């Protein structure tokens, strides 16, 4: 359904910053964290036109790795919650929104400045859950 992912320039800058903070070298790892971070937010992402103007690009399989199908299921489950149709177009759009919103959240969170802070989010999520 989502074959290719191409990030915006802004997202790329933000990811580069996150790379520096966390030492996580792979785009896909950071993107997974960003995606999940956004999914964890209760509000749906505001619809926006996100340009694919960077050269950072990856396939769905590279993004999800061995949990590719799980990530897809998560995306669909979120869409169901938000009452969004599971049209291929809509799902693809939602994914872009969630990914970029997540990158922005991570990059702009002043409490996330190291890999330790990254893992620290797990406890926060556990506490809220």
């Amino acid at each position, binding site marked *: 359904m989502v074959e290719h992912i191409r990030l915006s320039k802004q997202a790329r800058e933000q990811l580069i910053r996150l790379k520096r903070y*966390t*030492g*996580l070298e*792979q785009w896909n*790892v950071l993107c*997974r*964290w960003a*995606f*999940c*971070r956004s*999914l*964890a937010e209760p509000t749906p992402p505001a619809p926006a036109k996100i340009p694919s103007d960077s050269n950072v690009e990856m396939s769905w399989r590279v993004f999800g790795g061995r*949990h590719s*199908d*799980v990530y897809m*299921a*998560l995306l*669909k*489950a*979120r869409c*169901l*919650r938000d009452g969004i149709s*599971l049209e291929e177009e809509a799902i693809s759009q939602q994914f872009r929104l969630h990914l970029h919103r997540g990158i922005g959240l991570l990059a702009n969170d002043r409490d996330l400045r190291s*890999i*330790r802070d*990254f*893992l*620290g*989010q*797990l*406890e926060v*999520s*556990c506490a809220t*859950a």
Partner: protein
Amino acid sequence: MILDELVLHDFGVYGGRQRIALTPTARDKPIILFGGLNGGGKTTLLDALQLCFFGNVAQCAGRGDLTYDEYLRRSVHHGAEASEAAIEVAFRHTVDGEVQNWRLTRSWSAGEQVRERFQVIRNDRLDRAASEQWSAQVEDFIPARIAHLFLFDGEKVEGYADLAQAPILIRTAIQNLLGLDIVERLNADLVTIERRKKTELKAPEDAEALNALRDQIRQVAAARSGVVRERAAALVDIDRLRRTVSELDQRYQREGGSLYEDRGRLEAELSVSRRAEDAVHRSMRDLAAGAAPLALVTHLLDDIVEQAKREELSRRSAHTAEIIADEHAALLQLPALAKLSAKDRAAFLAYSTARIDTLRSAAGEPCLLELDAGTHALVTSLLDGDLTEIRRQGADLVAQGQQLAATIEHAKLMVSAIPSEGAIADLISQRDIAHNELRIAEYEQGRRDAELSRLDRELETLREKETRLLESVARAEFEREDVSRILIHSSRVRETLGKFRTAVVERHVRRIEAFVLDSFRQLMRKENLITGLRIDPSTFHLELKGSRGRTITAERLSAGERQLLAIAIIWGLARASGRPLPTVIDTPLGRLDSAHRSRLVTRYFPHASHQVMLLSTDEEITRRYYRDLKHSVGRSYRLRFDEDEARTIVEEGYFPDDTPRVEEAA
């Protein structure tokens, strides 16, 4: 003193035992006359008396140069049966008005060795003390050194008139007679004591030792105070060094000296922590690269599981509805059902349709997720534990990371506080130098303390020694005072003795002058010849004054006059001595001419003493003189040498025809 008896036993020419009574028969008959030929034993009698009284100090005529033992051996009579001889003298002596009877027995045997025995019997009892101490005791009766004033050889008397000989005689006589010999001895003893005490004074060994000891104490005390001064000075130095060291230590601490020393460890700690942190971070990244982000969205995972359940149910319902519809259609073909009433058939049909509708409506649920089995299992497994595990690991790693971060922070702080080598090297070397100096100073001080206590001990020992020496010096000082007092008094005593002696001698010399002059005049009856006689009290020289005060020398006197002068001197001295001693005169008339002989016979012999023994040859006391003397003679004996028996026999009577009967008749 009166001689009572003389017993000779094999002595000289006197063989056998011969007893001679000597007691004067009457006060006016003091003379006991012995006659004999030359070699008849007259001199032997004189020797016997002297030997008995004085032993080995007797001045016996027959002794010559012989040793005493040899003299005794030769004095044993040739014909004696046993080689033994003895002499006995019995005399009376009045002491403090009490008459004591004495009997001296001197006997000896001349075997291989001469053995002499001597015993004194006083008042018929053996006086052991007197026997043993006789040589001292005899001085009370006849002092040995003036014996020759009373027991003398007339032939030798002339020499005394020699002006050179007389002073010696007079000096001896004066000294002995007047007890001046005691004064002299006292003087000599005092000189000896003084000399001995002076040598005692000269040996203040303790004082010298004390001085040496005090020098030593001074040296040790000086050394000690030197050490004390050094120690005090060093104390100041040490204080200063201690302050310096403590200041440097504080500065060193302040400037991170100990951190500097620890810098290797701190830096290692930091790098270790950093490596550990790196490892933790790697683990974190590994964890983060896995399923970790999924833990953020567990609620959606739950949604997925719910949704999947519903979609499964829907799929199964659709499947079942189709089968049931087929089954229902087949059932409706059952013949038995045809037999049923239309009503029952309609009811059955409605039921079947409703069932199928329910199923169909259930199957109408949309299949949105269409999870495959693998994904479903993955999600289930995540929810069932994988995520919990990931959370736990994450928390662990975070905790580790925090700890490490804190450690690193601290280590970084420490490391940042480490001073640079350049900044602290100078301080370190200063501090090391200061520490070394202090250590050396303290060591030196310890050495000084030890030295000080050693010196203290030494001083204590020396002071104890000094105390002991002081005591003995004080004693010595005391003794020295004693000694010097003795010396002062001794010299005073000697001075006094000297005055005493001079005074006594002067006084007695005057007496002696008078006695001698009187004796000489009695003998001379030539008053005009000698008018005066002087004896110099210091030299004892004799000086005669003639008529008109002329000095007359001895040389100007005739030989006879000189002999008379000599006898006068002896007589005068004997009278001056004040001792009532018997006089024994051997060869009484010697070489005198007839005029002088008669003077002696008539004026001297009867008056010489209360007991006068004359040992004469018939050439001297001839019949003529015998006649003149006879009224004064108490006893007379003849010494007859018996050719046959080769011994002298003492017989009574001066002349062979002069029998005792004659004497008794007189």
